[in-house]
């Protein structure tokens, strides 16, 4: 929307403006930084807190779930192993207790017992009855062990002493890893041993088949840390493990292992291990997995949380910068608008003060002018009635009086302009056909324009409705503008003045553009062209009131005026006049109409 006086400069800024602009620029930069930091702080802190809280909660939950899973695995397999061993121990004890030595050494009886043992699951490799001297009394199984004497074997003494003994894995006479469960029974003076060799493959499958991810495994260690089953990764049965075996403890223990070396001598990554001791034999059941895999979900979630936070932070940063930039643009626009309004206010105030001053000056000049005029008239009257001293004196007298009259008229014009500027002139509102009106003005000025080599061009909007305005004041406006446009071509052999009208029904106003191809107005002068007494014309050629009066009249008629100028190219004034005059003007003129 056009405001008044709206001055568009195509040149440099006004003096003093660079300091102001630099100051403003620094303020905007400071404002920008503060806004961005504040926005980021207000957005990121809650995001980070929420993200951190959720992540912490999830990590704890996932960790507990994983550890529970490990504990469940260990507990489950321990029970299975213990159940297996207890069941076999109990069966052996039952057979020993329900048979005499003579009964059990019957080949058929031992074979039957062996077959009953392996009825559902091939869990025994062989079953034998061994006498006090260490030789087999009976044997059911695939090996030829009749000639073997076990009296000096480590397990023989143990079982004879304890009555029930479950051995660690050992190679024995058969030269392959196996372990035995043996019970003793006495019939009178005769003490004998019922010994079962557990099917190693069947037993190992109870433990080794545990599959937990890619790195998870389960195995049994004896108290010395020797593998009782083969680990799935690294190591073999009956080899010494690198696993740090500690003393017996009840229940299940979770351990974090770092710096352990595998069978290949390479350092293993951090591992999580869950262990539990079997009561008999004292074997340690270990279930372990690489930490990275065990908590892969947590790490994955953490990584994604980190990515999410980074993306969110980046988005917030971008959005905050964009929003702040947009806000600063709005602030800049508002500041520019405020500056413009301030300028208008200052201009209006300046013009009002000058208007008052002008009215006073006009009055004070008019009175002596009136006296001079009467003195001149008296001289003229006297000259008519009294004799002149000679023709030369008469000629000089007439010439001087004529010059006095010219200068009085000149002063009168100045004072009238001053009064017109200060609005102390009469207005009359009539219906005006603006297009026809402008054509008349052009006709009026055409002769003067042609003599200066200037052509008029008109582009008048036929849809323009008639205005209610003051034609005499409008004439003053356009005559002043066109006169200035013609004068602007001084020094140019030819040029043009273009008058354009446009109807703006939306705002209910008519727009008139008066554009010339003259010398233009320098940016330094552009701010001052509406100031009274400001002129770039030579002494005696301009009073400097023309554009002030134009501005004053346009404003009084409820319109606006703006100017654009390019030095060396030309100047364009744009005047917007309302279809109907403002209410205050109509009211102030009501009395004038009544008189008319």
């Amino acid at each position: 929307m056009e405001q008044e006086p709206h001055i568009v400069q195509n040149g440099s800024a006004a003096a003093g403006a660079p300091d102001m602009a630099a100051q403003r620029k620094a303020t905007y930069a400071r404002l920008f930084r503060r806004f961005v930091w504040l926005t980021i702080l207000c957005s990121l802190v809650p995001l980070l807190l929420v993200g951190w809280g959720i992540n912490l909660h999830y990590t704890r939950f996932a960790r507990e779930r994983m550890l529970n899973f490990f504990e469940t695995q260990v507990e489950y397999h321990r029970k299975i192993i213990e159940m297996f061993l207890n069941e076999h121990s109990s069966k052996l004890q039952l057979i020993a207790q329900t048979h005499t030595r003579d009964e059990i050494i019957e080949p058929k009886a031992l074979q039957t017992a062996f077959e009953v043992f392996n009825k559902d699951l091939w869990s025994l490799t062989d079953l034998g009855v061994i006498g006090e001297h260490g030789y087999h009394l009976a044997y059911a199984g695939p090996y030829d062990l009749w000639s073997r004497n076990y009296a000096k074997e480590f397990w023989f003494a143990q079982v004879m002493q304890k009555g029930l003994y479950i051995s660690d894995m050992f190679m024995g006479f058969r030269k392959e890893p196996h372990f035995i469960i043996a019970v003793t029974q006495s019939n009178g003076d005769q003490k004998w041993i019922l010994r079962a060799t557990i099917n190693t493959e069947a037993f190992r499958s109870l433990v080794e088949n545990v599959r937990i991810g890619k790195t998870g495994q389960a195995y049994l260690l004896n108290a010395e840390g020797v593998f009782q089953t083969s680990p799935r990764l690294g190591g073999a049965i009956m080899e010494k493990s690198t696993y740090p075996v500690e003393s017996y403890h009840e229940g299940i223990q979770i351990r974090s292992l770092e710096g352990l070396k595998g069978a290949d001598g390479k350092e293993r990554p951090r591992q999580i291990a869950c262990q539990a001791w079997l009561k008999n034999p004292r074997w340690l059941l270990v279930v372990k997995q690489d930490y990275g895999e065990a908590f892969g979900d947590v790490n994955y979630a953490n990584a994604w949380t980190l990515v999410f936070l980074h993306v969110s932070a980046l988005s917030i940063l971008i959005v905050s910068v964009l929003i702040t930039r947009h806000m600063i643009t709005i602030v800049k626009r508002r500041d520019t608008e405020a500056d413009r309004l301030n300028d208008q206010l200052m201009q209006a105030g300046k013009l009002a003060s000058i208007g008052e001053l002008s009215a006073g000056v006009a009055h004070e000049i008019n009175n002596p002018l009136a006296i001079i005029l009467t003195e001149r008239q008296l001289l003229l009257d006297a000259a008519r009635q009294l004799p002149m001293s000679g023709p030369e004196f008469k000629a000089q007298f007439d010439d001087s009086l004529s010059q006095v009259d010219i200068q009085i008229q000149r002063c009168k014009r100045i004072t009238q302009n001053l009064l017109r500027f200060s609005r102390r002139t009469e207005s009359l509102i009539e219906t005006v056909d603006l297009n026809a009106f402008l054509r008349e003005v052009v006709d009026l000025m055409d002769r003067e324009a042609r003599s200066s080599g200037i052509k008029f061009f008109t582009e008048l909007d036929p849809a323009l409705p008639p205005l209610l305005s003051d034609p005499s004041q409008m004439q003053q406006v356009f005559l002043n503008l066109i006169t200035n446009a013609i004068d602007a071509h001084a020094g140019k052999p030819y040029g043009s003045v273009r008058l354009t009208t446009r109807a703006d029904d939306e705002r209910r106003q008519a727009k008139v553009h008066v554009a010339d191809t003259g010398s233009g107005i320098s940016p330094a002068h552009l701010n001052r062209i509406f100031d009274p007494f400001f002129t770039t014309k030579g002494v005696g050629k301009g009073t400097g009131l023309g554009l002030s009066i134009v501005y004053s009249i346009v404003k009084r008629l409820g319109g606006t005026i703006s100017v654009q100028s390019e030095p060396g190219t030309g100047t364009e004034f744009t005047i917007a006049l309302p279809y109907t005059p403002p209410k205050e003007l109509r009211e102030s003129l009501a009395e004038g109409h009544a008189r008319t």
Partner: protein
Amino acid sequence: MPGSRVLLVDDEVVFTRNMSKLLTYRGYKAIAVNSGDAAIRELEQADFDVIVLDLKMPGMDGITTLKEIMKLGLFTETLILTGHGSIDTALEAMKLGAYDYLTKPCEIDELVAKIEAAWEKKEGQG
């Protein structure tokens, strides 16, 4: 019309003196006074056809003087003369009963024309 009695009221002594002479040369009976009070006193003592009254005067200003004149109920017409060019004040004066107004500086012929018109109006009313 020549012979008419004209009262000139203006605080500018030289102006009223000169204008008085010019009107006298043209056959009018012009009397000059330089304040509103003096004008009222003069009007109480003598009849005038037309009064030429300045608006801006020290002491009793033109509008007050006009109101006092109207109170006297004289058979006369008043012309307002102002160097200020204030339309609002001039209109106010006309609302109070003044016949017309002129702005300073004005030619003697212009003033004479207005005086004639005022006189004709007065005579027409009579």
